[in-house]
């Protein structure tokens, strides 16, 4: 099925895409890599940055093999650099 989800971008990725959030349709269920691939085919200019990124759904990082279908939001977390 296809579901429209709020996606949020930060830092360098926000700069590359020129936006901090948008509503996008995703094919679900999907795991982290599948969500990233869907974003990469939409935004080839951010492909490398997305390949380094992690996905959080409803503000929790997805684990490697977790498959999700029902959630409200995606945060795309590029490599962090806090501290």
């Amino acid at each position: 099925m296809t579901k429209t989800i709020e996606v949020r971008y930060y830092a360098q990725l926000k700069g590359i895409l020129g936006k901090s959030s948008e509503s996008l349709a995703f094919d679900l269920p999907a795991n982290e890599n599948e969500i990233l691939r869907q974003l990469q085919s939409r935004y080839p200019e951010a492909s490398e940055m997305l390949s380094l990124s992690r996905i959080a759904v409803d503000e929790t990082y997805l684990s490697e093999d977790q498959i999700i279908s029902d959630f409200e939001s995606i945060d795309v977390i590029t490599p962090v650099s806090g501290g």
Partner: protein
Amino acid sequence: MAVIKTRNQIFPQPEQFLVRDSINRDILNQMVSHPKAGAVLLFEGTVRNHTHDSNQEVIALDYEAQASMAQKMIYSICQDVLQLSGIHAVAVQHRLGRVELGIATIVIAVSASHRHEAYLASRTLIDRIKHECPIWKREIFRDGSSQWSQGCTACSATEYHQPKQTKSPHNLV
């Protein structure tokens, strides 16, 4: 069975973990003070004038975060650290927005019965917060240009740079 320690050993309130104003180390020190503590360790990350990524002179850093997620993760990391041996209280504050040269970007306070416990807890907190929490820094250079930091700039070059295959917050500790 381990007793789960409660919020009154984690300071300040989670909505104060990320702040736009300067951090007062004496307040964090006071928050963790405890009659059983023989050691208090204050770690401060500070803005320095150079980075691994660039030869340009850094004059400030500018921080951005997924704030509500970062707050929850910092709280969860603090809970984990309170389960370590001998830890009485922990306090964390991290700056958002622009921070000038020499100023603290993060302060972590830990009180413990013994110094070895304090060092372990302090290092665990700073390492996990840096590697796991959705916070990003941009380096602002003397000439007015800027660039997003590539991974953990305060780490040495040979250190963990969050390669994808080991990025899970759950397999770091």
